[in-house]
């Protein structure tokens, strides 16, 4: 059974009969041009926007869940809503959140240490979480959401505006969460370099899913994606174009190997 099913989702003039499934433990990215409805989809999945009879989690319709339970088994981050933190330091903020989920003092301390290490927050423990860089806020939000042991995360373009190095750290973090907890992740992104790192990619266009599949097989459809206004990752773009000229026969993502292949 699929973990999450979206069946014939209709919403205003953004989505018409939009459907997809997500298996347990999968990392799914959703992309598309500006205004294709990526953020709205996350709002619908999270429950911020109510729709009828189209979303099932673990085989049960969303409206059959008590609202608190839906929130407990899912975790949502929408950075553009500027989520604010309650406490003056990251240390206090985290400890408060830990205390909501963990009973014994010993375990609380252990969990705190683990989080600080895993999310690389050591230098920021005494800083005000509302004033730290976006990258640190995102990591803190992720850590907090994970404390509730959700089955699935809904992330709205959490890598947007981050430096490449920071984006990589977030992706690695998501990958390790996925491995350790078998959590499923749905993340929107306008950056196909990030989509390339996921297990499965959906492209939304014209109110429906236009393309879906293993990211590389989707991203090599350069004509379609260029028309949508999405940039192909450079190495994919180069490979696809060189393949058209019969210079290479497959997609090569490694730059050095590509140079070696072209100029033997």
């Amino acid at each position, binding site marked *: 059974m699929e973990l999450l099913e979206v069946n014939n989702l209709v919403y205003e003039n953004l989505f018409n009969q939009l459907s997809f499934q997500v298996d347990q433990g999968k990392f799914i990215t959703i992309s598309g041009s500006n205004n294709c409805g990526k953020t709205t989809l996350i709002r619908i999945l999270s429950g911020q926007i109510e729709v009828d009879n189209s979303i099932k989690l673990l085989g049960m319709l969303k409206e059959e869940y008590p609202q608190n339970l839906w929130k407990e088994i899912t975790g949502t981050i929408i950075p553009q809503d500027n989520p604010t933190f309650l406490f003056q330091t990251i240390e206090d903020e985290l400890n408060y959140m830990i205390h909501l989920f963990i009973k014994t003092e010993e375990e609380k301390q252990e969990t705190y240490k683990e989080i600080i290490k895993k999310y690389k927050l050591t230098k920021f423990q005494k800083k005000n979480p509302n004033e730290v860089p976006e990258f640190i806020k995102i990591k803190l939000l992720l850590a907090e959401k994970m404390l509730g042991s959700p089955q699935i995360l809904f992330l709205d373009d959490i890598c947007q*505006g981050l430096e490449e190095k920071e984006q990589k750290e977030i992706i690695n973090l998501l990958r390790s969460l996925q491995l350790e907890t078998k959590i499923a992740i749905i993340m929107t992104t*306008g950056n196909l370099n990030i989509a390339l790192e996921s297990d499965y990619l959906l492209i939304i266009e014209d109110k429906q899913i236009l393309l879906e599949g293993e990211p590389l097989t989707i991203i090599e459809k350069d004509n379609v994606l260029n028309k949508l206004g999405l940039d192909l990752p*450079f190495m994919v773009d180069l490979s696809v174009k*060189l393949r058209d*000229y019969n210079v290479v026969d497959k997609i090569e993502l490694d*730059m050095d190997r590509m*140079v070696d292949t072209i*100029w033997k």
Partner: protein
Amino acid sequence: MEIVLENIKMNDWEFTTTLSGNDIIGITGSEYEEILDILNLKALPQGEIKIDDNIINKDNYLDYYKKIVKVGKDFTKINYLNTIKEHMDYLINYYHLQIKNIEKKEKDSLKIVGLDSSLLDRDITSLSNSEKKKVQIAISLLSNPDMIILEDPFSSLDNKNRKKIMMILNKLKEQFHKIIIIGTNDCEILYQYTNKIIFVKNKRIFLEGETKESYERVDYLKRNGFHVPDIVLFTYKAIKKKKVKIDYHKDIRDIIKDIYKHIN
């Protein structure tokens, strides 16, 4: 339009540079936001500043500081204001802008960025990301600025919308001779859209010059912690590892042509 900054000293920064209305100027480096704030002249730094041969000093500074505007990364909605018009009216009051026909000025500003004047009464929250960016630029035009500083303007936009915003910025430069500054750490954007570039490091200007030529100094930039666009890096590797004679290009299709010529 030209701004000459000589021996500027502020908050541990020290630099000398000339910004010209003939260029789209990129500024990059981990501390780029700080130098954008200094250039924004919200406080008068030490050193000599000349705007088109007029020396800026304590006495005339207040006349000039309205002539330099910064377009922030995101639209900062003012809490109790809703529509575009309300925001524009507020800023006109706040900065005591002397405008004869306010409504006309507001509509004209929207027109310059390609938006319909009927949008004046639209709620800010109902705008798309690209509309918000255009409105931000329109608002910045109310004070008839000489220089527009944009902080990471493209991170939430797909390439279609990036191109539209770039057309607007080019128009402001060509027709209205405004100095356009784009601060970002996205080297792909800088390489594609700017013709002059300033690299900053350790609160100094580290390197400045033509964008294309500057990025060709791959070793030097990488050694100093700057990212280089993929298209440049690929060409560099081919030249260095394989001693092939290909040129640096901005468009991937030109590289493909070079490669094709070379291997046949």
